[in-house]
């Protein structure tokens, strides 16, 4: 991959952010509802987290846990019946939720961009890659033809695709190349934040790993922050700085990735980690997590994970847990509540 220095846009200052404290994105108590015939379904419930500059935040969870809805809510791309019913998303100190479309358009693509899940559907099949790059540039900036051509070549080279493919159509590229082209497109304006929705889910392990290494390398070069959504927890283990584990619309655990992997506090995170067979070490029988995620139209009372939880106790069905601090991480489990600190110790002794 060419490592030529890529000029940042002159109007973006690197360090001093209006938001202050190096915090690029502050999501606070975000709540998203889908209005359905069966009543409101709360797909994202009181989610709060921060993304600092150049940080890689992984969001993991099963299908239907609200992780994609969360991304769309952050990027202000929700369309009815989904609606943000509470909370705020502050990007460099400005609340995106209350912004008008016009104001958003000034930020979109230039300051934050989105890489969609399926490149086959997200790229237009009947126009060439180059034409789609031009489209995106023209919609958000006034560039001369020469500048457009120069920038298109530049970003394609950045992701390791021969610029010859600007003339190619999506079907002429392999799955891995299409995904790379999507990422190149998201980097057209060198944004501060790139939001990625399972960009590697359609790829093979080998291509998947190559793409992850590449994203990390680009991030190191260009200094953008990444919110990376995936259902595959092991995928982000080496790449993300912070990890958010979602279950049934809620964040059940967040913290530094290494902490969550080494000592998961929430039973769901533990279950997810135990659900991966390893290719090293002894072959041990695994159990996975019995049952399936709840229907969000009728979430279970108390803790939402309680019907599937191996360590649930009476109180779990009555009390809705908050996020409790556990070392550097936070966990939404009553066992981690300060009042239950002794219980936690007891259960750990039992399990070891």
């Amino acid at each position, binding site marked *: 991959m060419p490592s030529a220095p890529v000029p940042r846009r002159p109007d973006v200052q690197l360090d001093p952010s209006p938001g202050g404290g190096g915090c690029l994105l502050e999501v606070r108590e975000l709540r998203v509802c889908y209005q359905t015939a069966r009543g409101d379904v709360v797909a994202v419930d009181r989610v709060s987290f921060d993304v600092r500059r150049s940080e890689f935040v992984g969001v993991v969870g099963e299908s239907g846990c609200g992780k994609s809805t969360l991304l769309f809510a952050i990027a202000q791309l929700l369309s009815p019946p989904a609606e943000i019913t509470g909370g705020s998303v502050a990007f460099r100190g400005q609340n995106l939720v209350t912004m008008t479309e016009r104001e958003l358009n000034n930020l979109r693509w230039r300051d934050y961009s989105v890489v969609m899940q399926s490149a086959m559907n997200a790229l237009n099949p009947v126009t060439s890659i180059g034409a789609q790059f031009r489209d995106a540039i023209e919609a958000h900036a006034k560039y001369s033809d020469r500048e457009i051509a120069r920038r298109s070549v530049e970003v394609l080279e950045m992701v390791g695709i021969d610029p010859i493919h600007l003339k190619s159509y999506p079907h002429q590229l392999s799955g891995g190349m299409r995904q790379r082209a999507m990422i190149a497109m998201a980097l057209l304006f060198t944004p501060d934040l790139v939001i990625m929705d399972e960009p590697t889910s359609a790829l093979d392990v080998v291509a998947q790993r190559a793409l992850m290494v590449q994203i990390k390398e680009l991030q190191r070069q260009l200094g953008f922050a990444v919110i990376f959504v995936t259902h595959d927890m092991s995928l982000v283990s080496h790449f993300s700085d912070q990890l958010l584990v979602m279950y049934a619309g809620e964040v059940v655990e967040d913290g530094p990735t290494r902490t969550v992997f080494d000592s998961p506090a929430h039973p769901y995170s533990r279950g*997810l980690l135990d659900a991966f067979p390893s290719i090293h070490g002894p072959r041990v029988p695994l159990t996975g997590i019995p049952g*399936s995620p709840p229907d969000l139209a009728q979430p279970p009372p108390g803790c939402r994970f309680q019907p599937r939880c191996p360590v649930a106790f009476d109180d779990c069905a009555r009390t809705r847990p908050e996020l409790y601090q556990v070392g550097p991480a936070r966990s939404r489990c009553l066992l981690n509540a300060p009042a239950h600190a002794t219980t936690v110790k007891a259960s750990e002794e039992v399990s070891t």
Partner: protein
Amino acid sequence: MTDATVAPPLIEARDLTRHFKVGGTWSRKRLHAVDNVNLSIRPREIVALAGESGSGKSTVARLLAQVYRPTGGDILYQGRSLASLHTRRQRLQYRSDVPMVFQDPFSSLNPAYRVSHGIMRGLKLHRRELNHAQRLEEAQRVVTAVGLHPAADILDRYPYELSGGQRQRIGFAQALAYRPKLILADEPVSMLDVSIRIGLLNVMVKLREEENVSILYITHDIASARYVSDRLIVMYAGHVVEGGPTETVLRNPKHPYTQLLLSAVPDPQAPLRVDVETGKGEPPRVVDPTPGCRFRWRCPLAMDECFTVTPLPRTLGPDHEAACHVATADPAEAVAAAASDAPATVDSGPKSADA
């Protein structure tokens, strides 16, 4: 595979080949989806067939399920060639012995019918000796066998009332209803959530233990292959590149592609090795290939011979084969073996070169 096995193979593919026509009406181009594949599955054995998308692993399953007719080669089932099955009854018998479970549990069940419909129809067709009450009983038995309770209630539901994991279990229950000898499972867990996958893999192991079926488990996920399988076969671009007992292959991968595949598996426990060749290349589309190893463009060890002679599987350890000119049987005598093995593969080269 080697003939020195204890039990005779249940099913055996010999030089199995399948080409597809590509391009327009007058095109003479052939896509070599599967070329000269030899594999055998013994009774009560779980064999994992691993490879990237496009490596031909699903085509192998469809050839075994008789969805496609082979372009060349032969499939022997219990010692008998499938080409010799002429009557409808014989073919029906084969299909009930070797059913298939599909990848997508959301589109493989008919949404207009209750779950019982698919199972009962299969029973009616393949097990005609049963009367209605017995069929119902059998349907409940297979639904229980795949871990769904209460069986009667599940049978009465429509597919949309079931979760993905439950639907995929129904897929296995349908296959199980025929009293199969071998289940061809084509990526049965890849569409399921991580927390549910393990449950289904456990069902596969349980079916082998309790129902005495063999399973061909097709997957791109090496870790899950290790979890369930006895033997592992790795395919690349239509060729079998390596095969052997799962643990042996994983501990001592001979083929550079297997090594690449293993290095790419994300493992939270292991430290990240960014220095490992991540292999930016893509698997080739094998249209009218010329002789030579199909991995040569991505292979870090490729030598001149790899560009001219197609490597044939060579036995490199007990029951362990790899199709590579460079791979050696024993690391101790690496240099000597590489030199002495080379002529042997040149001799047998032309056979596979123009398949």
